[in-house]
């Protein structure tokens, strides 16, 4: 079974967690630490694994959509934490920032706690809004460099 096939169905709860993790991987340290500071009843966080930095082999596809090949590696930092409520959270992101990975794991764990989930969702909305604005700006800047062709008619008839 390929990894694509076991990818979670969007209707499953796993898909919501996956979306949250996707955004947490792109959160800035400032966003994460501010969100953590604003949580009133902080659970106790115990490290389970890491944070640790390692490599992921990034794969491409031959011709763009053909069979996979190994393109090259990327640094990845991951962490796993357990909250006093028993929730286990995983954080994993590109780069070597251990603090961000630890926070991402904490918020993944908080996402599974009904009491804390709204705080995580607020953070998700904040990250998503920032990313959307950045993507929008880049797309508009790129669109301004689109070539408009016109034909010049030379000579008569």
């Amino acid at each position, binding site marked *: 079974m390929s990894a694509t096939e076991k990818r979670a169905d969007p209707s499953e709860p796993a898909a919501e967690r996956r979306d949250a993790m996707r955004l947490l991987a792109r959160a800035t340290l400032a966003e994460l630490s501010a969100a953590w500071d604003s949580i009133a009843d902080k659970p106790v966080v115990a490290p389970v694994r890491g944070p640790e930095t390692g490599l992921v082999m990034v794969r491409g596809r031959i011709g763009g959509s053909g069979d996979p090949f190994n393109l090259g590696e*990327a640094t990845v930092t991951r962490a796993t934490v357990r909250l006093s409520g028993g929730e286990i959270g995983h954080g*994993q992101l590109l780069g070597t920032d251990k603090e961000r990975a630890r926070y991402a794991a904490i918020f993944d764990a908080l996402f599974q706690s009904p009491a804390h989930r709204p705080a995580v969702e607020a953070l998700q909305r904040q990250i998503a809004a920032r990313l959307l604005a950045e993507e929008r700006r880049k*797309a508009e800047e790129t669109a301004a460099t*689109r070539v408009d062709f016109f034909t010049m008619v030379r000579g008569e008839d």
Partner: protein
Amino acid sequence: MYVAVKGGEAAIQNAHRLLADRRRGDRSLPAITIEQVVQQLGLAVDRVMAEASLYDRSLAALAVRQARGDMIEAIFILRAYRTTLPRFGSSEPIDTARMKIERRISATYKDLPGGQLLGPTFDYTHRLLDPSLLGDGAVAEPARKEPGEAVMRVSDILDSDGLIEGDGTMPEGHVPGDLTREPMEFPMPRDLRLQALARGDEGFLLALAYSTQRGYGRTHPFVGEIRIGEVEVELDVPELGFAVSLGVIRVTECQMVNQFKGSANEPPQFTRGYGLVFGQSERKAMSMSLVDRALRTEEFGEDIVAPAQDQEFVISHADNVQATGFVEHLKLPHYVDFQAELNLVRRMRRDYETARDGEGDMKEAAE
């Protein structure tokens, strides 16, 4: 017998101290920061990431600074660093069809869905030195426009008419090979060749690509499409049972469309070469796609007549860390080796002189 000679410890220490001083340069000037290198020398950073085969902009910038701008030294440092890290796994293949496009051009179709998006290119600049960059003048904000329709792959346009061969496939059940884990063997399958080319030296691949254009293994290429932008990297996390996004990386992709191949069973079709490189590196991606196509010579039943078509030659010499290691090792002490060579050449000269004198004696005796 192998005799080790020690010495030069103080000289080496002082040489490295001198290197640190020269690297820092004039202390009255501010030191460059890693963030400045990332932001303002971004394409140097991209090249180091691509050829070190390690995507990490900050570490690549650190390597550039540490190497005083010597690119191959920086690539070497970053390669060495990667060997200190454990591997967590392999990503899901990145999906370049869903790239957030920053540049996209085609030389085969003028009007195509998504259009020609020039992006931040050096093309059409006049290549005149810009004196305004001597100072730190204000730079205008980029222009903006409402984005148009989504971009479409040029290969899909040609494919819908059956005019081009499909994306590359490997034999059923093939696991992508990994050069960092297995020794090189020839003939090498295309997936491994692409890995080698993606980390290969830009200058070497550029020269080989150029040689195919000049007639050493001509492939009649057209740039079907070049696209630069960000793609998500997803990793399957066993604890979770699904793949999660780790963030985005910028890559450059080149689809080269080359002249036809057909057979008794198949009508003629365009063939393809593929280039995919970390960062923004169009020259490298184009060179890679030209060399990829040239290396498929045998697959198309063509004769190997040029260097760019010889996979053992190309792949064995594309890695600049290996190449610089072997070339530069020549400057390390070879005192004993050289003594042996000296003895040998002296003995050969003695033999030569003896033979010559002997010949002289023989001639005299004959006369």
